[in-house]
């Protein structure tokens, strides 16, 4: 009898702590995620603004594309294609 009462009380405790923790964790995750998104959106916006001032970057990007192409060709050649 007592054993069964223990079992029930353990199950209730586990439920309480379990659901509590699930909510705690996911609520925390909501806030952390929102914070992360805000920070990144700000950074992205700033770098976009910079883009307008600094046309170098897009040139760099183009160069990068070219480098990429050369490298891909090299790998293809290496693989004996």
């Amino acid at each position, binding site marked *: 009898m007592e054993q069964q009462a223990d079992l029930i009380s353990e199950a209730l405790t*586990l439920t309480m702590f379990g659901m509590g923790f699930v909510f705690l964790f996911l609520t925390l995750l909501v806030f952390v995620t929102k914070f992360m998104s805000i920070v990144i959106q700000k950074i992205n916006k700033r770098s976009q603004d910079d883009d307008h001032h600094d046309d170098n970057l897009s040139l760099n990007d183009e160069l990068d594309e070219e480098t990429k192409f050369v490298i891909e060709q090299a790998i293809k050649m290496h693989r004996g294609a």
Partner: protein
Amino acid sequence: MEQLNLLWSNTGLNQMVWGQGLMLLVGMLLLYLAIVKNFEPLLLLPIGFGAILANIPGAGIAEGSGILHVFYVIGIESGAFPLIIFMGVGALTDFGPLLANPKTLLLGAAAQFGIFATLLGAIGLTTIGVFDFSLTDAAAIGIIGGADGPTSIYVASKLAPDLLGAIAVASYSYMALVPLIQPPIMRALTTEKERQIEMVQLREVSQSEKIIFPIMLLMLVALLLPDAAPLLGMFAFGNLMKESGVVDRLSDTTQNALINIVTIFLGLAVGSKLMADKFLQPETLGILLLGMVAFAIGTACGVIMAKTMNLFSKNKINPLIGSAGVSAVPMAARVSNKVGLESNPHNFLLMHAMGPNVAGVIGSAIAAGIMIQFLG
């Protein structure tokens, strides 16, 4: 003559006990559900076939050095197969809708109450003497309510390996039944007006956010609940491979060849746990019953949570997406969409429901971590 006797005495016909015959039929039922009814065939077909192999009298395929037992020991006892599948699921998951509307994480939290309610139910049935479940058994059964196959299998292999077969079968069967189980509950708990709520268009999510999210998730797990780290770690790893965009060949293989290979062997190995003497117990009936209850309660709690959140927020959530919080990706989200269209033919809830849907995966893994920490 002696040889004829030996041959006869070794036939399956002669060695069969009634339980094995019944289990052969159960295996064929699973194949029927998989092939004809299209119930999660990727898992139920291998599980069903494994069940048949495991119950062939005298073959011993699921015992000792039998091949299915080898697959079980190597793949499930070690935890490798469910974790690798979870990595693959991660590589197939898009957190975009969740990141666009993070508060839907709470719907994924609420739906986990199905897990704990089922645990309580199992213990309740034990105290009134209907079944005889220990607390670890009850916890493993509860996770069925999480509606994530690999999570269920992982937890069951840690806490209640004897019940693994029944738990896996219940888990995948009910996932397949989501389109039948959920709609009546969803309709009962919502008004027509609530079901017609149109939600704000989701914003586009940048790649940086998608890359950082899995790492952040893992860090939070690492700091708060290390026992959930294997599951959520592999999940986050798969997702990071996909979103990072720098290891596409690894991500592609994970989403295809690797997850397919592991699925085959996982299914067969789970099937090996459907041997008659283990499966044909009153407990199995209890598990099937409780699993159904778990799904129902999880669905209800998700919907109710959505309604509760609407009390405190001006950006109204359509409560139909709450039911997707049980996970069962992507079936539950499709159900939300379908029920929504019934009330408002221009209201596409699918993407909105994907948020709670993947949140439910995280929520169940957290609940699993709690169970393993307290009872493992």
